[in-house]
């Protein structure tokens, strides 16, 4: 059977794509210190178990490190690219509260995300013709209902220039 682990739903694409925390470009490293025992660390443990895969999926270039049983109380630490460190205390918090708090302080807001999506749509116009890497189609012959590429199927006689020239010459 393909089910592996305790909550295999964490491995599904649908679950990963539901993650809504996308960090700002300044955040480079995220560190989670938590304990494996104790009720105060419970929220942090759940956060690591459920939300970290989603975060890593959405922020592929963010470095995430986990440290276990190093400090008595759990916390998150973010390292920005200007050297600033942001400490977030998560003692006694629920994993949903933690993810909401983190999204508020260091996540991209809805408007920013929408603006980025708009820009991406504008940059890649589906009506463009060009190399397959950048556009959907290369030539009109690929579109349904248009004349097929004469390289693969020969054109009907009436459309060839040779025949038309012949006709024109024979008429004169």
């Amino acid at each position, binding site marked *: 059977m393909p089910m592996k682990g305790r909550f295999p739903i964490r491995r599904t694409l649908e679950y990963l794509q539901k993650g809504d925390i996308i960090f700002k470009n300044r955040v480079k490293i995220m560190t989670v210190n938590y304990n494996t025992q104790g009720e105060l660390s419970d929220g942090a443990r759940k956060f690591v178990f459920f939300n970290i895969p989603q975060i890593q999926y959405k922020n592929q270039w963010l470095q995430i490190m986990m440290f276990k049983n190093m400090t008595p*109380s759990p916390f998150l630490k973010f390292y920005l690219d200007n050297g600033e460190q942001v400490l977030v*205390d998560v003692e006694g918090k629920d994993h949903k509260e933690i993810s909401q708090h983190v999204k*508020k302080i260091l996540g991209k807001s809805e408007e920013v995300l929408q603006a980025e999506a708009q820009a991406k749509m504008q940059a890649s116009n589906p009506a463009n013709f060009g190399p397959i890497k950048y556009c959907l189609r290369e030539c009109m012959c690929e579109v349904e209902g248009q004349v097929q590429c004469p390289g693969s199927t020969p054109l009907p006689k009436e459309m060839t220039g040779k025949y038309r020239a012949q006709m024109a010459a024979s008429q004169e």
Partner: protein
Amino acid sequence: MFQVIGGRSVQVTRLLAPRSPVIVEAVRGRKSRTDPVAKSKEGRIKLPPPVDATEMVVLKERYTEYQMITRALRLEFKEEVLRKKYEEETGSLAEERARQEAEEHRALMAFNSQENLRILQVRMLRIQKETEDAERQQLEAVVQRQQQQQEFIKEKEKEVLKLQEDAKNFITLENLDQRIEEALDNPKNYNFAIDKEGRVVKQTTLQ
């Protein structure tokens, strides 16, 4: 596919031909280097298309104008793209945006530190309560231990008193003769029956 070559073996045809053709030898696509030229193409001299002088002049003018215009357009568009990029990164709008973002960031960091302080307070209270509990537990333990000790002493005292009481009935060397005489004088009968309440019911007579 065709490469231009100067000064090859076909000098004769070069002298004979009126115009200076471009001697072209095919780069070997299908044939290898040792294969000869095809029989039908042995003396072939390729000549470029004929050029009309007046037409050339007119065409040259038009081409220069056309190329100038297209080059200008191309450079215009390139410049526009570069300008947009520059504006995006170091324009007045970009500065505004950067400033706003910095402000927002500061506000969010302040909010975060507030949260941290709040959790700190909660944690201090919890630690205080825990230390108090621990102290109280310790005191209670001490008190309990003392109590246990007291009870132990009392138990021992009771036993000592009981022993003292019993000691009065012991048989010593002095009492020995007296107690033997007493025992012989009072024979005790242990044969009796009891009912459920513990009262003596029957008693046999001593033989």
